[in-house]
């Protein structure tokens, strides 16, 4: 019989642009140790290790095998998943499902990246079809700039609207001790930052970070013994709608739209804006913090800028987004989606300290990949039926 599953704890490294003090395995170990400390578990308690990153960043093949000393996977079932930018959230979904299967009781899920060892854009370019797409359309920023342009053109959205998202997330990051860029920025600074790919400017974009995150998923048989406040997984959903560039409809993020419809239906969410208390949105650039709110059904098409200007998504608002600061201040790619999961669970568990939202009953996290891949998880304080 399928088991109900909860996140019972997590650990993150301090994220920086370069962690010269540790190698990849040590970086992983740092996050794993913190997750074990957080749950008062030991390596012996873990019966499955799930790990992921994007291979071409560090140039290590079979990372699940290479990382054994840091992951604690020695003489344990160990598996690797990778789906690009969504890797971290894909790992979280796998953590939930593999524990829910009843075959494993406690899964240690690890996402990591040492972007300082990579040429990030060169590595991302290889995702695209070598014959048809790679020569004309590749990399992380170009596709996002195109999405932003279509959005601006359709609804009269401005660069200033997008900058407001950056100001929010950079401010939130100051309350998160693990965030990479912990310094507030002003609207002016965002708008005057160097252009990367029109209309996306340097401060509209996430950095590349070194970091790792580990999250422990436990079955209903043990979750409440590990913590008094487990964050129960209510549901998961995902979509990937892109093989070639012409597959993409840039009017909204359709993978997120379709995944959220499935997720809300599974979990009985009718009015997401009202029912969900906090979202950790995998939003690697500012315009995503507007357009994707519409794809998530939080407001109508073209209405997101108003929602954000009204402060609805700020720390004290009706639906705070990215209390951790999210991705714009911190992006260790393979870990990023899993950090969203860890942070959403921390909000449910009341463990987010400096960036805690009061009385969170339902939280959501997402994952995004440059290939328009979307992953989603919904968490609740209440044990699901």
């Amino acid at each position, binding site marked *: 019989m399928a088991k109900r599953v909860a996140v019972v704890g997590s650990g993150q490294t301090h994220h920086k642009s370069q962690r010269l003090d540790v190698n990849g395995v040590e970086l992983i170990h740092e996050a794993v140790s913190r997750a074990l400390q957080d749950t008062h578990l030991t390596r012996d308690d873990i019966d499955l290790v799930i790990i992921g990153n994007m291979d071409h960043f560090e140039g290590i*093949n079979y990372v*699940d095998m*290479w990382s054994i000393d840091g992951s604690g996977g*020695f003489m344990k079932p160990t*598996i*690797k998943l*990778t789906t690009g930018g969504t890797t971290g959230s894909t790992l979280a979904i796998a953590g939930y499902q593999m524990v829910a299967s009843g075959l494993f009781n406690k899964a240690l899920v690890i996402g990591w990246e040492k972007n300082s060892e990579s040429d990030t854009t060169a590595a991302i370019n290889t*995702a695209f079809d070598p014959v048809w797409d790679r020569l004309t359309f590749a990399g992380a920023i170009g596709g996002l700039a195109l999405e932003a342009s279509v959005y601006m053109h359709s609804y009269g959205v401005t660069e200033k609207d997008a900058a407001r998202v950056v100001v929010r997330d950079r401010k939130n990051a100051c309350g998160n001790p693990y965030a990479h860029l912990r310094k507030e920025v002003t609207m002016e600074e965002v708008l005057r930052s160097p252009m990367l790919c029109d209309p996306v400017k340097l401060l509209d974009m996430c950095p590349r970070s070194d970091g790792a995150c580990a999250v422990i998923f436990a079955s209903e048989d043990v979750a409440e013994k590990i913590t008094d406040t487990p964050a129960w997984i209510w549901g998961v959903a995902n979509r990937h709608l892109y093989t070639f560039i012409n597959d993409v409809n840039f009017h909204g993020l359709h993978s997120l739209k379709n995944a959220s419809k499935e997720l809300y239906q599974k979990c009985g969410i009718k009015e997401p804006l009202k029912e969900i208390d906090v979202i950790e949105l995998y939003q690697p650039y500012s315009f995503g913090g507007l357009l994707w709110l519409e794809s998530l059904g939080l407001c109508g098409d073209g209405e997101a800028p108003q929602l954000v200007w009204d402060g609805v998504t700020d720390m004290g608002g009706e639906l705070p987004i990215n209390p951790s600061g999210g991705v714009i201040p911190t992006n260790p790619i393979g870990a990023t989606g899993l950090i969203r999961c860890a942070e959403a669970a921390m909000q449910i568990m009341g463990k987010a300290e400096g960036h805690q939202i009061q009385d969170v009953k339902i939280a959501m996290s997402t994952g995004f990949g440059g*290939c328009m*891949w979307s992953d989603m998880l919904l968490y609740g304080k209440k044990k699901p039926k």
Partner: protein
Amino acid sequence: MDRVAIVGIGMTKQERRKNAETFSDMVFEAVTKALNDAEMTIQDIDNIVTGCNDFWDGRTISSMAVGDASGAWDKNISCVEGDGTFVALYGLTRILSGSYRTTLITAHSKGSESISSLITNAMFDPIYTRPLGLDAITSSALQARRYMEQYGITEEQCARVSVKNHKNAKNNPYAQLPMDISVEDVLRSRILSSPIKLLDASPISDGACAIILANEEIAKRFSKHPVWIKGVGCCADAYHLGDRDLSESRSLEKAARTAYQMAGIQNPLKEIHVAELYDAFTYQELMWTEGLGFCNQGDGGKLLEKGETGMDGSIPVNPSGGCLSAHAVITAGLIRIAEAALQVRGDAGRRQISAAKTALAHGINGPCGQSHCVWIVGK
């Protein structure tokens, strides 16, 4: 464990070079065959797990290349990067979790577009062991040497694995190297990395495989011949070769114990009727038969010499010809599961083992069989 069955199987022929086909062409062929086999359409599939490796494919987010060919449009999809047996394990848990009812699992690889030595060299620690030139072949040669030294395994015994499996491949229309060869041929073949010679090693192959897993309700509704999953186990050993005794496969022993326990198997030699093992090199088949408890540690050579692992033996190993006869990496473990299931169904054609009710499939990840995954399937 709730009951889950393999209800559809499809694979391409494995070939040295599929010039005309892209990754997605190969996967589409395997998926179409699996759907036809299951008498399903893509609408009956509610989720997909692809098995891809960014290094072997030369593409980051390698799953992207085969999403549409796997029929994943607007469906839940994920990607395991590792051998097909591990891909299928995640696919299985997606059904057991209650999230889905029918999982399509695909795997593909084009060895012809890869440089195997560079790609497998990238498995090793970039500072300490990569500069030594270790790759799949040279590291396996170290393991073979240690295994032979420890247990007196001979090059002749290893050669006999090659003779057996290439002969078996003659009965498998999907195999790449069906051959009648002699022990002498193997011993005289070119040395790749002593003691491994050309005919001790698996070939470079292109190919894809797809299987469909379904929960009990769907399996009973659709399938005339469901093959039930009885047990699965996997386990990873230490990473650094120096941290292991390479003549032993303790992670395989543990993975097998888990799978046997789940399947209620006490005496594997008697209760398992056929096994498909990941024989990337000849010595590995001997080692894995030991790790799986078909014989005592060090007796793999004797088990083979007695003919126990031959087509008429008590535990035929690799009636398909194994990886030695066709080795599309990542795909290989999924093919082992597919072959095991075909045996249980009685659909293995000329490579059929009579009265095969329970079959074992096995896959590996990492250097020198660092991690193993063992599947037991049956009627």
